[in-house]
C-alpha cells in the first residue's frame, strides 16, 4: 500500500512538471494558427503565400506512375514546358513561375499526402490543374478549408462548380454532363434511331456522364449502362454485356487507358460499334499509342468532344515550337495542347491578379470574367460559374487525323443547343498581358 502512494506522489510530481513544460511550449511554439491571422504585414492586404519578389510557386498532383500515368503524365510536362517558355519571356509581372509536380499515382490516398506536402511544406501559392475526379475529390475540403486557390482542376466533374460550397475551386474541363449531352445530341442528330449505351467509370465521372446522356435522351433513352473500376484492368464482362444488349453507339466515360482497353477488347470479340468518348479519354495520339499498329483501323470514325485548339491552329503551331524547345521534343498529342492551354490560362489569371498577387486577387481575377483561355469559345468563369467550358465541339478521327467536325453544343439551363464556335485567336506569341 505504502509503495502505491509514494508512487502516485512521484507520478503527480512528474505530471506537474509535464504540465509546466507543456505550458512553456505553448508560449514559445511557432504559431500554428491559420494563415489568415499571420502577423506578417502583408496579411493586412491579403495572403501572398508562395509569392516572392522573383517567383511564384504553384503545385499540382498528377499520376506519374500507376494505371493512369501513361495517359496523363505528359500533361504536367507540357505545362512545365509552357511555364519555362513564359519565364524565358520574362515571366508574369517580372516573376518566374515555379511549378512543383507531385505524383499521386491516381490514388486518392496518395493525393491527400502530396497535396498536404505542397500546401503545408512547400507553401505553394495555388494548386493548379490537380488531376482526376476521385483523387481531387479527396483534397477538395482540405484546400477550401485552408483557403488555397484550387484552379483549373483536370477533371470534368460538376463538383468543382459549386461557388457557394467551394469558393476556392475552379474546374477546367468541360464538365461531363456537358460532354455527354453533346455526344448524345450529336448521336441523335447524325445517327437517329440507333441505340445508345454507356461504359463508364465507377465514380462521379460515370455518374455525371450518365446524367448528361439522360439530359439529352430522356430518362429511358440509354439502352444499357456498364461500369468499371480503375483498379481492375479487365472490361471483357462489361463489353460482352453491352454487345449482348444490342448497342450500336457506345458512349465512353473513360480515361484514355480504358478507352483503348474497351475498343481493343470489343475488337477481340469481333464487335465494332460507333464509339463516342469524353475528351478525358478521346485523345487520338494517346489512344494510338495504346492500340499500336491496329489503331488507324480501330479508331477510324471515332467521335469525341473537345474545347482546346486542335489540328492546324495558330495555338497548336506555337505549342509545337514550345514543345520542341522546352520539352525536349516529347511526343506531341492532345495532352500537350491541354497542359499548355491550362498553363496559358493560369498565366492569364496571374497577370490579371496584379503587380503584387495575393490569393484573394487571384480569385478575383478568375471570377472577374476577364479570362479568355484559348479554346473554341472563351472560358466561362464568373462570380457564379466556376466551370471553364459549358460548350464543346464534336471531333472525329479520319485517316489518323482528329479534328473538329463543326458541330458545337452548349448546355444552358438544362437543355442542349447547337451553337457557333467562337475560337480565341492567338495574341502576343501566347504571352499573357504582353
Amino acid at each position: 500500500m505504502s509503495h502505491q502512494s509514494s508512487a502516485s506522489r512521484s507520478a503527480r510530481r512528474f505530471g506537474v512538471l509535464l504540465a509546466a513544460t507543456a505550458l512553456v511550449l505553448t508560449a514559445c511554439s511557432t504559431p500554428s494558427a491559420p494563415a489568415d491571422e499571420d502577423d506578417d504585414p502583408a496579411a493586412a492586404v491579403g495572403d501572398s503565400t508562395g509569392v516572392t519578389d522573383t517567383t511564384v510557386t504553384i503545385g499540382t498532383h498528377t499520376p506519374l506512375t500507376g494505371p493512369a500515368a501513361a495517359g496523363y503524365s505528359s500533361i504536367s510536362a507540357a505545362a512545365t514546358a509552357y511555364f519555362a517558355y513564359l519565364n524565358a519571356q520574362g515571366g508574369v509581372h517580372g516573376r518566374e513561375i515555379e511549378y512543383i509536380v507531385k505524383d499521386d499515382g491516381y490514388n486518392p490516398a496518395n493525393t491527400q499526402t502530396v497535396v498536404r506536402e505542397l500546401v503545408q511544406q512547400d507553401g505553394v501559392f495555388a494548386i493548379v490543374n490537380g488531376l482526376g475526379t476521385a483523387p481531387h475529390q479527396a483534397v477538395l475540403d482540405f484546400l477550401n478549408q485552408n483557403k488555397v486557390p484550387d484552379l483549373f482542376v483536370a477533371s470534368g466533374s460538376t463538383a468543382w462548380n459549386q461557388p457557394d460550397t467551394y469558393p476556392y475551386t475552379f474546374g477546367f474541363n468541360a464538365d461531363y454532363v456537358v460532354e455527354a449531352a453533346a455526344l448524345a445530341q450529336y448521336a441523335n442528330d447524325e445517327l437517329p434511331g440507333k441505340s445508345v449505351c454507356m461504359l463508364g467509370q465507377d465514380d462521379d465521372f460515370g455518374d455525371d456522364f450518365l446524367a448528361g446522356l439522360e439530359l439529352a435522351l430522356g430518362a429511358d433513352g440509354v439502352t444499357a449502362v456498364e461500369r468499371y473500376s480503375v483498379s481492375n484492368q479487365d472490361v471483357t464482362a462489361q463489353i460482352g454485356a453491352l454487345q449482348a444488349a444490342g448497342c450500336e453507339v457506345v458512349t465512353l466515360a473513360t480515361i484514355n487507358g480504358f478507352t483503348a482497353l474497351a475498343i481493343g477488347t470489343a475488337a477481340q470479340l469481333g464487335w465494332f460499334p460507333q464509339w463516342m468518348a469524353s475528351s478525358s479519354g478521346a485523345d487520338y495520339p494517346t489512344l494510338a499509342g495504346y492500340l499500336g499498329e491496329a489503331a488507324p483501323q480501330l479508331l477510324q470514325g471515332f467521335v469525341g468532344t473537345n474545347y482546346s485548339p486542335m489540328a492546324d491552329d495558330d495555338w497548336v503551331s506555337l505549342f509545337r515550337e514550345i514543345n520542341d524547345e522546352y520539352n525536349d521534343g516529347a511526343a506531341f498529342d492532345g495532352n500537350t495542347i491541354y497542359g499548355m492551354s491550362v498553363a496559358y490560362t493560369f498565366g492569364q489569371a496571374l497577370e490579371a491578379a496584379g503587380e503584387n498577387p495575393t490569393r484573394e486577387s487571384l480569385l478575383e481575377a478568375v471570377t472577374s470574367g476577364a479570362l479568355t483561355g484559348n479554346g473554341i469559345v472563351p472560358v466561362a468563369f464568373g462570380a457564379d460559374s466556376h466551370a471553364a467550358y459549358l460548350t464543346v465541339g464534336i471531333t472525329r478521327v479520319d485517316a489518323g487525323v482528329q479534328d473538329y467536325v463543326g458541330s458545337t453544343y452548349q448546355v444552358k439551363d438544362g437543355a442542349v443547343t447547337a451553337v457557333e464556335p467562337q475560337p480565341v485567336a492567338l495574341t502576343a506569341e501566347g504571352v499573357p498581358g504582353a
Partner: protein
Amino acid sequence: MTRLFPRLAGTPRVLVVAGILTLLAIGGTFLLDPYRNFQLATAAAYFCAIGGLTLLVGLSGQLSLGHAALMAAGGYGYALTSIALTGAGLAGAGRFVIALVAGVVAASVLGLLLGLAGARLRGPYLAGLTLAFVIALPAVTSVFSGVFRGDQGLQTAYEPVPELLNRLIALEQWQAWVAIGVTSVVTTALALVRRGAGGLRMRAVRDDETAARLNGVAVRRVKVTAFTVSAAAAGAGGAVLCFVTQSVSPGGYTLAFSLLLLVGAVVGGLGSLGGAAIGAAVIVLLPWVLSLLAGSLDLPAELAQRLSGNLSVLVFGLLLIVVMLVRPGGLAGAFGGRRRGPWVRRSSTSPEPAEAPAPASPSPSPQKQFLAQER
C-alpha cells in the same frame, strides 16, 4: 524505465507510463508545424495497427498479411457511421465517438471471423487467407459500389477544432491530439493484454501448442482472441486515419501497404510495442525523407520520375535485410538491450506513447522472464 518508478509495478505502472508518454506526445505537437502534425497523426494511426499486428505475430505466433484490410474495415465503419450520423443531424464529439466505436466493432467482427478460420490454419495457409482478404478489398468496394463508392471511396464531414481551442491550435494539431488520445488508449490496452494472463497464454501457445494445451490453455480460444484484439487495434487505426483525412478509399489499403505494416512491426521488433512505435515512425518518415533527399539531389526529370514512389520500396527492403542481419530483434532491441538508460531518455522524446522496453526478440524462456517481471 524501472529506474523512473522503482516502487511501481504491474498495471498501475503501465497506466502511469502511458499517461506520461501521452502528455509528452501532446506537448510535442506544439513544436511541430501543421504538416508534421499531420505526419504525427498518421504515425499514431499506424502505431495502433502495427501494435495490434506485433501482438498477433510476436505473441500469439499467427502471421497476418491482411492488416490493411482490417484497417480499411475500421475506416469504412467509421466513415459509413459518420455519414449516417451527419445525415441524422448529429455532429461534434458524439458523432466522432460513435463512429470510432463502429469502426472498431466492424474491424473486430471481421477479425473474429478471420480468427475463427485462422485458428484452424497455420504457417503459409494462414498467411494466404489473410492475403486474400486484402487483395479482395478493391473488388468488394467496386462490387458494392452503392455502399462503398468504388475506387473513389467515401468522404466524411470533418470535425473542426473545438471552439475553446480554436484560437490556440490549428486543425492539424487538433487532429494529432485526437489521434494521440485514441492511440494511447488502444496501445495501453494492448500493453495490458500483453502483460496480463492473456499475454502469457499467447506466448505459451506460440512456443508450444501441445505443451500449452497440456497445461490447460484453450489454444483455439487464445488464438481467436489474439486475432480479434489485434483487429480491433487495426480498426481503431483505420478510423483515426479516416478522421484525419476525412476519407477512406481502397487505394489507401493496398497489398503493398499491408506488407509495409508487417515490415514496420518486424523492423521495430516483433512483440514489442516500443518497436511498433518505431516501426510506425519509420513507415511515415522514410518515404518523406527519401523524397526530400531525391528532391535536393537535382536529378534529371526522367530519373526522378522513375524513382518517385519506387525508391522508398527499395529502401524498405534494404532496411529490412540490414536490420535482420545486424539486429534480428528489431530496432527496439537495439535501444533496449544493453543500453537501457539511454533508451529511456530517447523514448521520452519519441512522440508516441510507447510501452516500457520489452524483450524484443523471444528470449530463451519468455514465460519465466514474464513471471519474474510480474510477480
